[in-house]
């Protein structure tokens, strides 16, 4: 287990992403005066966290244009709305780092949510344990199929997406569960200052995930496998074991997401997952991770999730309809990848 989570300051995180993560840092040119050095520093900032820059711009924009945006109530709302996607994006970043993809996260949220809720009749702990075990199990299935068969991850997780959705509907007969222990519901609504418990869970998991990805041999292997599967094998990495592991992590985050969502909305709906199926992938991509694997960071993926929430919250306050918000989000995802491809070209 990590020694000191506090040591992972944002600054260190960005440098950790820059060096082993890949081509993000352009080398200091041999020749060139102060001008090019300054340009280089700017470039490095933009390179290391384009999403952070974009997020700050958005926050400033909404703070100016919309009065209630920076109130503590609204900040809490944003945190509440981002918590589930943020947790999912952690697991998704691991999977995408290996050049895989996990489409099943959303239905794992639904399945673990309803099963966990059903079992909470026998105690909160029982519900949590079973829900987490279920998430790990689905992740294990995804991982084993991806690592040991020739079925691509896209198809494997598309299949388990359907399996989990079906399972959630079967288990509940399509009816939501609304009777939940009061203590569990309280967790979903209480907060420490402006930080709801939900977002605290997400942040803690995010810090652990970031450390795991950026600082350990396992994390290095994730990017190595995503960058070149064959070269990873020839380097002696246990490629299959690591592939299984990233899907297990993703399944775990799905289960945590399911529990957080259930406690927040005070109910478990078998159809809850459909809203989340692609959001975590979008978060990773907005954060600068490549779907071809080999790069990205947990903290940028989480910022990607936050950016999506800020965007929908801010536009909401400006009176933009939910439908239009969905449309805007699509534009943002494409723009993020477009800008990112430009950044990589510059780095080359």
């Amino acid at each position, binding site marked *: 287990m990590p020694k000191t989570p506090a040591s992972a300051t944002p600054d260190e995180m960005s440098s950790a992403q*820059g060096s082993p993560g890949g081509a993000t840092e352009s*080398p200091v040119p041999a020749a060139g005066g102060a001008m090019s050095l300054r340009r280089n520093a700017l470039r490095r900032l933009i390179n290391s966290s384009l999403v952070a820059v974009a997020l700050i711009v958005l926050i400033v924009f909404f703070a100016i244009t919309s009065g209630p945006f920076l109130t503590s109530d609204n900040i809490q709302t944003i945190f509440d709305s981002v918590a589930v996607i943020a947790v999912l994006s952690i697991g998704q970043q691991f999977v995408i780092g290996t050049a895989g993809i996990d489409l099943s996260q959303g239905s794992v949220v639904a399945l673990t949510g309803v099963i966990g809720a059903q079992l909470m009749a026998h105690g909160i702990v029982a519900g949590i344990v079973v829900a987490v075990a279920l998430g790990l199990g689905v992740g294990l299935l995804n991982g084993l199929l991806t690592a040991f068969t020739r079925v691509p991850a896209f198809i494997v997780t598309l299949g388990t997406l359907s399996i989990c959705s079906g399972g959630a509907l079967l288990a509940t007969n399509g009816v939501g569960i609304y009777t939940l222990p009061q203590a569990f519901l309280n967790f979903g609504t209480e907060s420490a200052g402006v930080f709801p418990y939900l977002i605290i869970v997400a942040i803690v998991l995010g810090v652990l995930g970031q450390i795991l990805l950026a600082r350990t041999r396992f994390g290095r292997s994730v990017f190595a496998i995503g960058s070149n599967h064959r070269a990873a094998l020839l380097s002696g990495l246990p490629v299959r074991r690591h592939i299984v592991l990233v899907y297990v992590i993703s399944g775990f985050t799905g289960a945590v997401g399911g529990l957080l969502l259930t406690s927040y909305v005070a109910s478990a709906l078998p159809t809850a997952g459909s809203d989340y199926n692609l959001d975590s992938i979008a978060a990773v991509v907005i954060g600068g991770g490549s779907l071809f694997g080999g790069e990205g960071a947990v903290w940028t993926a989480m910022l990607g999730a936050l950016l999506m929430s800020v965007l929908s919250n801010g536009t909401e306050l400006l009176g933009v309809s939910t439908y239009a918000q969905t449309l805007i989000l699509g534009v943002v995802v494409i723009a993020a990848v477009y800008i990112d491809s430009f950044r990589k070209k510059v780095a080359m």
Partner: protein
Amino acid sequence: MIGARDLSVRFDTVLALDGVEIEIAPGTIHALAGQNGSGKSTLLKVLGGVQRPTAGEVVLDGEPISFGGPADAARRGVGMVFQELSLFGHLSGYANIFIGHEPRRFGLLNRRELQARSRALLSELGMPDIDLARAVSELTVAEQQVVEIVKCLSHSPRIILFDEPTASLTSREAVPLLTAMRRLRDQGYTIAFVSHRLEEVFDVADRVTVLRDGQLTWDGATRDLDQPSLLEAMLGRPLDELYPTRRAQPQAEVAVRLEQARCDGLAPVDLEIRAGEIVGLAGAVGSGSSLVAEMIGGLRRVKEGRLIVGDRERKLRNPAAALRAGIAYMPEDRRTDGLFQQLSIATNMSMPLMAADHSPLVARSGFVRRRAERDVVLAGVQQAGVRPPDPFRAAGLLSGGNQQKVVLGRWFLRDLPCLIMNNPTVGIDVGSKAEIYRQIAELADSGHAVIVVSSYNDELLGIADRIAVFREGAIVGSYRRGEVGERELALLTLGAGDDPAPTTARPTGGSDAQDARIGHTG
């Protein structure tokens, strides 16, 4: 006539071409020579409209001209044959050749004319035997290269620019291609080609332009040039010795032994590699030399017979098992199989050591010891001679020779007693080659057992203590240094009385090179 006046190209901070003048006379073959990174490919790309010059101008028929792109250049009669084959693997040869400008009739594809015109172009090249109806991915690399050329001819150019046409071919496969280039010249085409194989420059070129660090260092008729002065123009210094002298003898101790070991496509093989010995495996593509290397490297199961490492028989289930037994394998295609392109040089070099059990770079908790990693990597970059020596640069940005140094450098960091290299010098320049030969010799001098698979016989004769020759999936001979000469070795690898027209001949042994790739992707 095509040429350039005072041409410069700047990439960010690097001056790739610096005031280059060139004139390619009509009806000649003009070679552009130089090491990797000398700017020769950039020059060709500017002439072909792929790259815009930063300063200076391209001159076509005496007029300054600015191409809008390769398609524009093609319209004006300048065609380019690219180094990276730009073919669609699952389409037929026919479909590839006229892609984008298919002959049409009533708005529909005129298949008959397309095939007739393709075949006419193919016989113009003197190679009518290639089956254009097959999917391009089923053709050999040499045949694909021909399809690429025919595709270029289909735009009826006057001037054809070849970017390293023989880089991915063995010297035997290159012969018909060079013949085709001569034929094209004799039919009135003007040809410029980039190459770093000296022999073929002397073989086909009428004139040579040599570049070094973006500047022109020699320009003139080939007959005024000999090999040493060409090398000197490329390197900027005379190349004393391409092959290093050995300081130690092979030891008595056997590092790896095969006893009647076989796998699919390979007859039972007996082979011994001693500590401190460089064993060369010679043979054409498909001869089985790669299969033996892959068997020892854990990429391929030994079906029968025994593989003995040190004094123990081993069953190597995968590369990781081979590494644990002390055997490292360096693949032939470093871009697709060897390198983590978008990861840093540091990560590329440290990965095998990091993957090791009880790695010094990893704490027991699983955390990377970053300080230890940095120290080890800095030393490794130095020892491997990587240029530029910046460990945080993405490995994919390096030149071919330096990428190979990174891949080799991994095994300085994770120091194993046996190292297998599959064609370690394919597509890299002379300077880097000399460096890699020196490092191979040093590995052997310090007691490592080294296996080098190569389709270049001259390099095996230069560095190997012993050469095992493969043909059609079996060993046909084994020779100590000095026991076999270049001519004899060539005959052995080709097979005496073998058909000397290799482009149309499929590799024997069921193209096991391709099978090999399919066999271990999972």
